């Protein structure tokens, strides 16, 4: 079965835009061999505005290979079934802010997995929020 991610985007912003529907099989860099390692599916509850490491690369039990084809999926699932579209959590890489995941938002992003390039999460408010995430990578 492998690891497969499929995206569908629909929008009525631009007349004639037919939407996006694409699928990818996560493979090892430069090959058609399936990617072989994962962090497993995890959740992290945040209740403060301080930045935390969602993923600390140097602490992964299976060492990820650097600068290849790793990906991470992250989703803001709110808290206890309530998602707030008006506030979010800034996701960053090595302190570089990538963007805000508002309630219900998700992202899929490639990673370097270099030790310095930890994935950080910084909530905009003290309200409790839960992120779910899973990282796929190649074993070093």
């Amino acid at each position: 079965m492998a690891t497969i991610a499929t995206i569908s985007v629909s929008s009525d912003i631009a007349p004639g835009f037919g939407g996006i529907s694409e699928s990818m099989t996560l493979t090892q860099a430069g090959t058609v061999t399936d990617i072989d390692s994962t962090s497993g599916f995890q959740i992290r509850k945040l209740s403060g505005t301080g930045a935390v490491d969602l993923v600390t690369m140097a602490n992964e039990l299976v060492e990820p290979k650097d600068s290849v084809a790793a990906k991470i999926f992250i989703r803001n699932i709110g808290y206890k079934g309530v998602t707030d579209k008006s506030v979010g959590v800034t996701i960053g890489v090595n302190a570089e802010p990538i963007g805000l995941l508002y309630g219900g938002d998700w992202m899929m992003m490639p990673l370097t997995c270099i030790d310095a390039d930890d994935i950080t999460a910084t909530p905009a408010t003290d309200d409790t929020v839960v992120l779910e995430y899973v990282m796929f990578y190649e074993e070093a």
Partner: protein
Amino acid sequence: MATTTAAVTLTSDLLSDNMSVTASTTCMKAGTTADGLDQMEYGYLDLVTGDEYDLIGATPTVSKASKLYLKNHSTDETYFIAITQGTQAIGKLYGGDWMFIPADFHDAAGEIAITANGGTNKICYALFHEGITLNASA
């Protein structure tokens, strides 16, 4: 209200039991619950090897709720594009890979740049946003 919906299905057999995740979100303007993103850029281009290029020509309003989709349509799995934001390397998209991220564009140095490797890569991208600053005509 303009409506943009992004959905994903993620399946994997790397765990002891098959994992299947589905998620869908309506892309809203920053800090609102009633007003959706209402502008977009959509493009398809050949990216030659060598130089690093800014993917987005005009910087969207900073600290907003823009969403960026990017796919490498190259059919050669050894081809890839390296993605950076500012000076920070984000990762690589090999032929067939896509990404979908919230794009904060926190300041003038926050633009996302791409570099082709292996050969000329074919890129498709879509930026959903709530306003950009256009460059004045010379």
